[in-house]
């Protein structure tokens, strides 16, 4: 079944990349129009377009790209001339670091929060958590980020304003580097977490409500087991299962959201690369990024589906 899914993913990826390729090449203006430089003559521009292969018909350019990809070559950036695969790989680390650690933090906060609000439905606690998490979800991310920087970095000087690792700390290496990166991560992570609490909490909340209404819980209650024991022994365990599913479902959101966060906090990840390449019309990099992120998302979906079926074998394969 996994094999079927993997095979099925291939035409998807081809479709995605071809569509994107088409959109980018049909756009008015391309990389050469970025170079409005009085020193450049029209003859030079023509030579440039020739060198970059921008004069060939679109489908030919696509086939060329596809062939190269299958050989592991994602092309070279127009802007820097660096190999695209290398560029993306060196940015993958910081993005994964931020996403994974944020996700862990979110789960640590929202799991108990969700369970408690679900167990104590409609209580004052539930009400407050709902309102606060809704507010967190309604704040524009970049606005929140800037305000956090203003408050905690500029006014209070607790954290650095942006970046990943200070050169001096890097030179010192070891624990000093790790501590330095951690300091740089606090504010962007806080921004991500505040915005995500609502969604995750509600997910766990619904989960626990559903579980608490299940027959086996009701029978346990009828048998006289204390509420607390029911909660801890049975409900929690089952409510924890969807975490794998959640990881798969939330990954696209995190990858998407990373663009803005990385831009504001100058975090050297894939999202920042995406924004820079979009603005400079660096197609090879954009195509490579699209491919990479689509692969990650499809992988996440596969994981989520597998996890879902594993938890609940009753779900028919539709």
């Amino acid at each position, binding site marked *: 079944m996994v094999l079927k899914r993997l095979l099925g993913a291939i035409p998807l990826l081809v479709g995605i990349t071809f569509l994107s390729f088409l959109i980018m090449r049909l756009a008015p203006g391309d990389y050469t129009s970025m170079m409005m*430089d009085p*020193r450049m*003559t029209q003859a030079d521009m023509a030579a440039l377009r020739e060198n970059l292969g921008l004069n060939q018909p679109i489908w030919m350019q696509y086939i060329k790209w596809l062939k190269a990809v299958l050989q592991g070559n994602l092309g070279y950036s127009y802007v820097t001339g660096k190999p695209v695969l290398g560029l993306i790989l060196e940015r993958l680390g910081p993005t994964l670091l931020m996403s994974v650690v944020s996700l862990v933090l979110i789960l640590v906060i929202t799991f108990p929060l969700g369970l408690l609000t679900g167990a104590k439905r409609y209580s004052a606690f539930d009400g407050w958590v709902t309102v606060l998490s809704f507010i967190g979800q309604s704040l524009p991310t970049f606005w929140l980020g800037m305000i956090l920087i203003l408050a905690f*970095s500029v006014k209070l000087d607790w954290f650095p*304003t942006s*970046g990943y690792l200070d050169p001096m700390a890097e030179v010192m290496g070891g624990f000093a580097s790790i501590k330095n990166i951690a300091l740089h991560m606090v504010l962007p992570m806080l921004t991500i977490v505040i915005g995500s609490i609502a969604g995750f909490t509600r997910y766990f909340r619904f989960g626990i409500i559903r579980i608490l209404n299940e027959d086996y819980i009701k029978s346990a209650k009828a048998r006289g087991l204390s509420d607390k024991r029911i909660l801890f022994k049975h409900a929690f365990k089952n409510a924890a299962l969807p975490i794998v599913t959640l990881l798969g479902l939330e990954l696209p959101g995190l990858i998407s959201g990373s663009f803005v966060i990385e*831009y504001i906090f100058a975090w*050297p990840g894939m999202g920042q690369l995406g924004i820079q390449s979009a603005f400079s019309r660096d197609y090879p990099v954009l195509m490579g990024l699209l491919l990479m992120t689509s692969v990650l998302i499809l992988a996440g979906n596969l994981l989520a589906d597998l996890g879902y079926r594993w938890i609940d074998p009753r779900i028919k394969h539709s």
Partner: protein
Amino acid sequence: MKKALFAVFLGGLILLGLGCSKSSSKVSDTPLRLVLKAEPSNLNSILHTDVPSAEVIGLISNGLFRLNSNLELEPDLLESYTVSDDGKTFVFHLKKNAKWSDGHPITAEDVVFTFDTLMSPKTNTVRRGLFVIEGKPVKFKALDTYTVQATLPEPFAPFLTNMSMGLIPKHILQNTDINTATFNQKPISTGPFNLVVWKPSQYILLERNDLYFGSRAKVKKIIMKIIPDSNTQLMAYQKDEVDELQISPKDVDAVKKLPNRVLYRYEDLQYTYLGFNLKKPWFSNFLVRQAIAYAINKPALVQTVLKGYGKPADTPCAPVSWAYPSADQLVKYDYDPKKSEALLVQAGFKRNPKTQWFEKDGKVFEFTLITNKGNPEREKTAEILQQALKQVGIKMNIQVMEWSSFVKMITGPKDPKPFDAVMLGWALGTDPDSYLTWHSSQYPAGFNFVGYKNAKVDSLLVQGRREMDQKKRKAIYQEMHKLIASDLPYIFLYYPEVVISIHKRVQGLSKPGPAGLMNRIEEVHLIE
């Protein structure tokens, strides 16, 4: 006895002197921390196109010439040179002690290789046109290990200025594809500093190059932090995470409040303007262009947008340039809205008493100004112009376009071009030759996108390029600028100043000017 005493006395004075200077300002060992406002694209002298790349390259590479604080050419890798009487043949003698940072000597072979690579059509560069005169390339030949001969098809005044372009090493780059060479991210240097680390999107670390042929740099390390967002740049500066920052006029008051900082300001080689599409029926009428000129209050504009850090502009040349017209040659348009309206009436427009807009042949005088996204001062200026023109009954719409589409619209080969008016700025080179901007041949494909045509200006442009004597050139350009200003193809708006705030600990700065505060980077050092 007296002699000995005297010697001791002198010795004592000297020791005292040394002791005094040491205790008043101890030289610090910490690195110099600068800001790059965007990630550099590549560090190859002939390929790079963006400002951050240029800033880094300026610290690690050298050309035959360099620009000093007075914007004059000085020999850099050059020892001496001769030029033939007809101005077409140059013989350059290179310094014999110059080395690349890997120990290889810098020779004429490197010079010839640099230009051969530049002229090759396979190289993706913008600079080729600098060395192509009237369609024919400049020819370079190595006469011996340290001598290069350059043969020009015509005498060309800007040639020497262009020779300040940096060199690339033959022994590393021969037989490679220059566009994708790893050298572009890991260059070797000829200059006072070497590239040690380039952490993409984070920082670039430079270290002193002990093989530099010039004087040894005083500072040991330079860290260039990459911070693209302007708010973040300012915050980093306020927290003393960087030593220097170019700031925009609105932040000056906030920065002035910071302790231990010094503020520098200087006029730059650039101007902002409103350009008319001269092929459009209304704008081809000189009276209409004049009417718009009189409707703009330039001093108020400079105060509101630049907070006074700038001057109104009246000519396509900057005051810092040696070719700037004298006061009596300037064509000024003072703010006079009544004159504006009178000129419009003269041009055949009538004011509609109900809507207050001027109309001609039943159509409202309405046009769209385009400008590029990303320059907040320009966008603000556009909004101010909109209000100003509204007051004299002209309806101006603003369209802010993304850079790439914007460029396509104004430099595309269509004739007539699809825009009405454009607001943009020109960064001027140190050489006043502006052939590409004003010559009638540079339309429709080229940078004369307004479609300006003046036969006298055309001939002056060609003359200015051929004339080698600077005094004669000055007269040519002054006359030319006066003609252009009188024709009013653009409304020249203002010259923005550059404002830089720098920490007191940074010493050894050069005279503030377009050649940069750290023009002699070898002199710069930090004190405690």
